[in-house]
C-alpha cells in the first residue's frame, strides 16, 4: 500500500449543476448513467475508478474517446475536482490540500504532457521548459541550466532559443516532455502525448520514452486510445469504457483473459506472439498423453521455459517435428504441440 505512488479510491466525477444531488442519488438509489442524465441533467464522467500505480511503473489508461480517461487523469493533479472518492499522491490526500500546497505538488511532484503540446507560443523553448521552475521562483540562471539538461535528455540540444512554432510537431512534443521532466517530478502524467503525431515519429518517440523511462524510473500514468501503444508502453493497462475501468492487468492478462466482450472485442486484432507466454497455453503431460499417446522422452524434444513467448515457441517448433516441452528446473510443467500453439496464436485455445 505504501509503495503506491499514485492511488485512486472510488473516484467519481459527475458533471452538471446538480452534481452533488446526482451523486447522492447514485449512492442511495444506484442510478445508472441514463437516469442521472434524465433526472439531474448531469453527466457521469468517471464512475467509481480505483487503481494504484507503484513506483517506477508505467500505467496505461486505455479507452476510446469519450471514455473518461482524460477526465480521470486530470483528477490526479486535481485539475478536475472529484465528486467523490480520494486520490493520494505519494501517500498524501491531494483533495485535502490547500491551494498553496497543491500548486507546490503540481510544480514539483507531477509533470504533465498534453496531446496538443500546449506550449506557450510567446516563450522560447528554454523558457517553456523552465516554466514550472519559474513558477516556483527559481532564478533564471539555474532555470536555464536545468532546462538545457532537460533538452539534452530529449535530444533537442541547442534548440533552447527557438520559438515553439519553429519546431516540428514531434520536436514540440519532445519539448513538452522536457518541460514535464525539467522539475524532476516523481510522477509523469501523459495525456495522449503521441496521438497527434504521424506513425513513424510516434513509434520513435515511444521507443525514446521507453528508454528514458528505464533510466529515470518515473512513475507514469499514460493515456492512450491505441491498444498497441498501451501494450508497448504499459507495465499494466487499465481499460476504460463509459467512464468506468472495466479491467486492469498486464497486457498478457488482458489479451488472454479479457474481462468482458467489450475488452475481448478490443484485443481481438492484437498479435499475441510477443504477449502470451508458454505457461498460458501449455497442456499438462497427462492431458497430452491422454489425447496423443505417451511421449517418448528419448526423442529430441525442443525445450522452452514457461515465460517464453509464443514467438519463441514458433521458432522452436519449426525446427522439430516433436511437441515442445515446457520445463522449469528439469520438471516438465507442460507440453505444447503444434495445434496448441496455432490455437494459442489465434487466441481460441484454452485461454
Amino acid at each position, binding site marked *: 500500500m505504501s509503495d503506491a505512488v499514485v492511488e485512486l479510491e472510488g473516484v467519481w466525477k459527475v458533471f452538471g449543476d446538480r452534481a452533488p444531488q446526482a451523486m447522492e442519488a447514485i449512492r442511495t438509489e444506484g442510478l445508472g448513467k441514463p437516469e442521472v442524465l434524465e433526472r439531474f441533467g448531469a453527466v457521469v464522467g468517471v464512475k467509481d475508478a480505483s487503481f494504484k500505480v507503484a513506483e517506477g511503473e508505467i500505467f496505461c489508461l486505455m479507452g476510446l474517446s469519450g471514455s473518461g480517461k482524460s477526465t480521470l487523469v486530470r483528477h490526479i*493533479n486535481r*485539475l478536475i475536482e472529484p465528486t467523490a472518492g480520494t486520490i493520494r499522491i505519494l501517500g498524501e490526500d491531494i483533495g485535502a490540500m490547500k*491551494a498553496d500546497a497543491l*500548486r*507546490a*505538488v*503540481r*510544480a*514539483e511532484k*507531477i*509533470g*504533465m504532457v*498534453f496531446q*496538443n503540446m*500546449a*506550449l*506557450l*507560443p*510567446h*516563450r522560447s523553448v528554454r523558457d517553456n521548459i523552465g*516554466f*514550472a521552475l*519559474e*513558477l*516556483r521562483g527559481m532564478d533564471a540562471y539555474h532555470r536555464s541550466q536545468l532546462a538545457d539538461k532537460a533538452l539534452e535528455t530529449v535530444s533537442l540540444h541547442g534548440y533552447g532559443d527557438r*520559438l515553439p*512554432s519553429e519546431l516540428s510537431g514531434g520536436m514540440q512534443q519532445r519539448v513538452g516532455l522536457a*518541460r514535464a521532466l525539467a*522539475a524532476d517530478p516523481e510522477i509523469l*502524467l501523459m495525456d495522449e502525448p503521441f496521438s497527434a503525431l504521424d506513425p513513424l515519429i510516434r513509434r520513435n518517440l515511444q521507443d525514446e520514452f521507453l528508454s528514458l523511462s528505464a533510466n529515470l524510473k518515473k512513475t507514469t500514468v499514460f493515456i492512450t486510445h491505441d491498444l498497441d501503444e498501451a501494450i508497448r508502453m504499459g507495465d499494466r493497462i487499465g481499460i476504460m469504457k463509459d467512464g468506468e475501468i472495466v479491467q486492469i492487468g498486464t497486457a498478457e492478462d488482458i489479451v488472454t483473459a479479457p474481462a468482458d466482450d467489450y475488452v475481448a472485442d478490443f484485443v481481438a486484432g492484437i498479435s499475441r506472439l510477443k504477449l502470451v507466454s508458454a505457461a498460458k497455453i501449455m497442456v499438462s503431460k497427462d492431458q497430452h498423453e491422454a489425447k496423443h499417446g505417451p511421449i517418448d522422452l528419448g526423442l529430441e524434444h525442443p525445450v522452452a521455459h514457461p515465460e517464453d513467448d509464443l514467438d519463441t515457441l514458433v521458432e522452436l517448433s519449426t525446427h522439430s517435428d516433436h511437441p515442445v516441452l515446457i520445463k522449469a528446473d528439469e520438471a516438465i510443467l507442460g507440453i505444447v504441440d503444434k495445434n496448441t500453439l496455432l490455437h494459442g496464436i489465434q487466441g481460441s485455445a484454452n485461454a
Partner: protein
Amino acid sequence: MSTATTNLSGAETRDVSDRDVAVGTFVTEGERYYAPAFEDIQKRETPFWRLNLWALLIPWFWAAYRGLWLLFWVALAVDVLAIVCLLQIIKYSPLLAEAEINASANATLVARYTSWLQVFTTTGLVVLIAGRLWLGHVANHWYYRQYSRWRINSETPSGISMKRVVIGAVIMALVMPLTFYRATQQRLDDRACLNQLRAGEQVEGLYSVYGVASPDALLPLMQSQADELTTRRATLDALDELTDAQKSERSRLRSEARQLDRSIGTVEDYQQITARDRFDCGFIDDFPTLARLDPPESVTYRRVPDEAAIANGEVGATMLLRNVKDPVEGRKVSIFTYTAESIDISINYLRASYATFFDTMTSILRQSLIRVEVAFMETPWPVVAFLFLVLSWAYTDRATTVFVASSLVFLAVFELWQIAMQTMALVVVATAICVFVGLPVGIWMAKNKYFRWFTEPVLDVMQTIPSLSYLVPAVAFFGISQPPAVLATVVFAIPPMVKLTALGILQVPESTKEAALAFGASDRQLLRKVELPMAVPSIMAGLNQTIMLALSMATISAFIGAAGLGALVTESLGDAQAGKGLLAGIAIALVAMMIDRILRGVRASFSRI
C-alpha cells in the same frame, strides 16, 4: 427523385408519408402540379411561360395558405406600392377638377396635376402587372427552395393551412386600410396640426375654469358671460359722467370682453375641427402620445460660502443652496421634456453637491495636460522631429520613414507644428487614461462573465452615442476647454481598448491555461505569465484603435474649446474658410497615420506570436 414516373402515372397511389419522396407531403394539395414543376426546376427545364396562376392572381392568399411567408411579404409590398400609386388618382382628380374651373389662370397647376396623374397611373399599373407576372414566375422557384429547406429542417412551414390564411388576412387588415386611407388624403401641414393641438390645450384649460367637459356646454356659458360683460359696459356707457373708478372699470371690462371673445373664437375653431382632421393629425401622422405631465419642480442648486460655519472658524466652508422657481401657471410638458428637465436638475444637483470632486478632477486633468503639452511644445521642434524619425527608422521600413519625414515637413511648412503638438498632448493624455482604465476593466471583463454582460452594452453605447450629446454634460461637470475634452475623448476612445483586451485574454486556448495550471501556476501567475503575454497582439490592436479614435475626437472636442488642430477646423467651419479647414484636416490625418504606422512597426517587432 422518382417523381417523373409517379406523378404521371400514379400520384395518388404513392406513399406520401415517406419523407424521401416527400413533395406530396410537403405540398399536401396539388401534388400533381408541383411534383413535375419541382422536377423541372431541378433539371433547369422550367419553360419561361409557366406561371403559377394562384400566385399570379391572389399571391398573398396563396403564399399564406402554403406558408411561403417571404412571398407573402413581397406580394404585399408590390400590391401596396401599386395601389398607393393608383390611389393618388383619387387624391389629385378633385384638385385637377378644381383647377380646371379656371383653367387659364391655373395653367401651371393643371399641367402639374395632369402629369402627376399620368405618372402615378402608369407606375401603379406597371408595378401591379409586372409585379404580379414576376410573382407568378418566381412562386414555384421560391416554393421549391422552401421545400429544400423543409427536407433539412421539418420545422419549416409546409403543407396547407387555413390558420395561416387568417394570420395573413389579419396582417393585411392591419397594413392596408390605414395605408390606403393615408394615401388618398391631402396631408394637413404641421402648423395646422400644431394649432389644433394648442387649441385643444386651451379648451381643456377652459374646461377646468368653467367646470364643464365639452365645447357644447362651454359655449353657452361663455356666451352668457360675454353678454353679461356687454350689459355691464352698456350701463357704464349710458352714463354721461364717469368717475375714475368707473373709467378703469370700463377699460377692464373691455379687455376682459376682448379676451373672452378670443377664447370663444378658439372654442368655436376647436369645435369646427373635423373628426377626420383630428384623426389625421393626432393618430396617423404621429404616434399618439397624449400624456401631458406637470413639469418637474424647477430647482437649481448652488454652492455658496457658508457664512455661519466660517464665522465658527471652519475655513472655506460651503453650503448647498437650493433655489426653487415658481412654476409657470398651467404649463404641461411631454414625457420627453419632463425627463430631459429632470436630468438637467440632477446634473445641476450633482455638480453642486460634489463640487470638490469635480474641481479636483478637472485640475488633475488640467495639470497633467499642461505637463504633457509642455513636454511636446517646449521641446524644440528639431528634437521632436528627430525622435519621430528615429522611431520610424528603427521600427518600420524605409517607405514609412519617408512618409513620416514628409508629414513632419508638411506640419512645419504650414506652420501647424505647435498646434499639432497640442493635439498630440491631448491624445497622449487621453490614451494614457484609456490604457490605465481600459486594461484592468478589460481583464475583469474577461474573467467575469456577469461583468461582461453588463459592460458590453455600455461600451456599445459609449461608442455609438453622438459625442456632442455628452459634451454638454461634460461641460456642465468640468467646465470648458481641455479637461472635459479629454474626458469626452476617453469615453469615445476607450471601448476598443477594453474590448480587445478582453478578447485577447478570452482567446487564450483553454488547453494552454490548463497546462500552466498543471505546472502549478497561481491565478495571478496565469494572468501575468500566460494570458497577458498571449493577449499582447490583441491589446496592441486595441491601443492602436484607441489612438485613432482619440485623434478623430480632436475636432469634436474643439467645440468645447479644446485647443489644437481641431480648433482650427471648427474655426474654419465658423468662418466658411474651406482651405484652412482642409489643411487642418489633412494635418490631423497625417498625425494619425504617422502614429499608426510607427505603432504598427513597434507592434510587429515586439510581438513574437
